[in-house]
């Protein structure tokens, strides 16, 4: 293990948030070892550039996995089945007792399923949503703390729906014991949540673990956990199973340390790193929620993700979804598939229809990629564009297009664009601003806070009032790209913007920071 660059909590608490961001940026500057994104033409986020970017066998594995490919997530859906309620560790950001249908975060579900119920649900969903390509088991506890239920579910599904990819998400404590079973089920993707590689840091995140018939606490617990996680990761890599590392960014506890985590997992062959913001509202009843531990701001999160981007892909499209989520990332159709409703459904699993549909999706997706490439060559004419870089928020329902009404958006996707091109850098959840056709002032403020670091917001349509308020806040509301490809539009806007700056029509100013929304997510 590399020496820790961990900074004591007391030390951090005394500094302001702004200083913390500065410090993070310094850390980033020192970490250039892993190279930054822009010049190498490296995909920004979970392999968005497609096949040219990676070995064919890897591309084959990720191309229709929404969590492993940023680009795939616009087109393909996933589902989680909640067959694994037990957990073998306790995390300070998790409280399993809290369970609300409007809540979107890991560890929360509305109903547990038996493996048999889960297998039936998968067939029902796959028949209704043909672009559903991936089944994951992510809890609500830890899949490998419930190995019998998890593997029974895999067994049933691999028999009835062999075209569905299987994956799981674990804390890693029990992973080394199960890697061979995972390999035998042809599981291509395993996610491990790694929040630290230093037990000194870990003791502030994990109050205890249950291991070898004993409860361990403090440094001992964190030491065992990190050793098992790293061992499990190495074993996955040795078997050619792609691994994604999830890390929760907890300001003052592991924010700077995550750069070191990134190095550690990269050196052990991890494919993708997903740094997520801490969710910690007091009403969740977690230790962090109750002791006032804050989550990162949007710019703090982005700075850390930028720092870790390099030879390793960063995932920025994670929606921190529930352990029973169904649908495209960012949408949740789980309410359509409760056990009662599934029992009433007549399920016909038709692999051919699914295949035909997915071929259409593939064509659509290639059109998106082609549109982006075409626009990229235009960009070259701008030279360095005076070093201007913009963030643009986009209201979209999927298919890689600007196709959502401002007032209906439950989230905005954020694209960064400069002279080198455009890339997806994240998303911001917002409360539904428009409910029943009339705008609510408060929610508009929430939206503005969430995209306050953006220069423009692209929408399919927008009303007059929010338009004026956005302008007042310095965010340009743009509806002229309605129903066009996102990245193409982003680049076109950028070229126009730079043109106007050059003509002296506008002055380029950088924007401030933005909030990451906490609390319950009202899905529809």
């Amino acid at each position, binding site marked *: 293990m590399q020496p820790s660059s961990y900074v004591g909590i007391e030390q951090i608490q005394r500094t302001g948030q702004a200083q913390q961001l500065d410090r993070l940026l310094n850390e980033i500057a020192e970490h250039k070892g892993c190279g930054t994104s822009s010049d190498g033409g490296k995909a920004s986020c979970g392999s968005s550039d497609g096949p040219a970017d990676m070995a064919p066998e890897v591309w084959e594995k990720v191309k229709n996995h929404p969590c492993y490919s940023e680009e795939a997530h616009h087109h393909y859906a996933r589902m989680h089945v909640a067959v694994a309620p*037990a*957990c*073998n560790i*306790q995390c300070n950001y998790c409280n*399993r007792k809290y369970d609300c249908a409007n809540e979107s975060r890991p560890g929360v579900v509305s109903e547990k399923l038996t493996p048999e119920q889960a297998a039936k649900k998968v067939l029902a969903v796959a028949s209704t949503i043909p672009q559903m390509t991936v089944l994951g088991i992510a809890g609500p506890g830890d899949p490998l703390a*419930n190995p019998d239920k998890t593997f029974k579910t895999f067994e049933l599904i691999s028999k009835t729906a062999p075209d569905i990819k299987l994956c799981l998400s674990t804390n890693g404590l029990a992973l080394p014991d199960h890697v061979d079973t995972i390999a035998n089920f042809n599981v291509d993707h395993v996610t491990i949540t790694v929040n630290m590689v230093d037990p000194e840091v870990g003791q502030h995140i994990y109050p205890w673990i249950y291991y070898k*018939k*004993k409860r361990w606490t403090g440094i001992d617990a964190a030491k065992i956990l990190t050793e098992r996680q790293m061992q499990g990761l190495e074993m996955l890599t040795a078997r050619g199973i792609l691994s994604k590392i999830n890390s929760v960014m907890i300001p003052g506890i592991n924010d700077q340390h995550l750069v070191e985590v990134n190095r550690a997992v990269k050196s052990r062959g991890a494919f993708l790193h997903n740094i997520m913001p801490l969710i910690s509202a007091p009403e969740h009843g977690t230790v962090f929620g109750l002791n006032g531990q804050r989550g990162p701001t949007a710019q703090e999160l982005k700075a850390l993700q930028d720092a870790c981007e390099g030879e390793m892909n960063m995932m920025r499209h994670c929606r921190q979804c529930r352990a029973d989520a169904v649908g495209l990332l960012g949408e949740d159709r789980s309410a359509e598939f409760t056990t009662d409703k599934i029992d009433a459904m007549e399920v016909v699993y038709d692999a051919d229809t699914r295949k035909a549909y997915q071929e259409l999706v593939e064509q659509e997706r290639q059109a998106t990629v082609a549109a982006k490439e075409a626009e990229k060559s235009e960009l070259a004419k701008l030279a360095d564009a005076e070093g201007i870089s913009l963030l643009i928020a986009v209201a979209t329902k999927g298919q890689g297009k600007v196709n959502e009404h401002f007032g209906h958006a439950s989230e905005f996707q954020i694209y960064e664009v400069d002279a080198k091109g455009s890339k997806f850098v994240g998303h911001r959840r917002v409360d539904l601003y428009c409910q029943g056709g009339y705008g609510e002032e408060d929610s508009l403020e929430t939206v503005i806070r969430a995209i306050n670091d953006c220069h423009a917001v692209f929408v399919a349509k927008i009303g007059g009032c929010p338009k004026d308020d956005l302008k007042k806040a310095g965010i340009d509301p743009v509806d002229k790209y309605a129903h066009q490809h996102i990245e193409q539009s982003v680049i076109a806007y950028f070229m126009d913007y730079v043109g106007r700056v050059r003509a002296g029509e506008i002055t380029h100013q950088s924007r401030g920071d933005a909030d990451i929304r906490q609390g319950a997510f009202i899905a529809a």
Partner: protein
Amino acid sequence: MAYKIVASQCTGCSACEPECPNQAIFEKNGVFVIDPKKCTECIGYFDDAQCVAACPVDKTCIIDTGYPRYQAA
């Protein structure tokens, strides 16, 4: 004595069930219950009572004072 599970605190997560060396734990109405006749407080098996060690909610698996302390045979 035997251990019991405070039903109002139990999340029904099942973490305790497979860990019990006496198969004394079973599910009832969505929560888990310990059969006091089978519970040995893990004496003779483990240093820690396994249900207590595995349970995610503090003070949920507790000693049931309605029963005499378990005596190892």
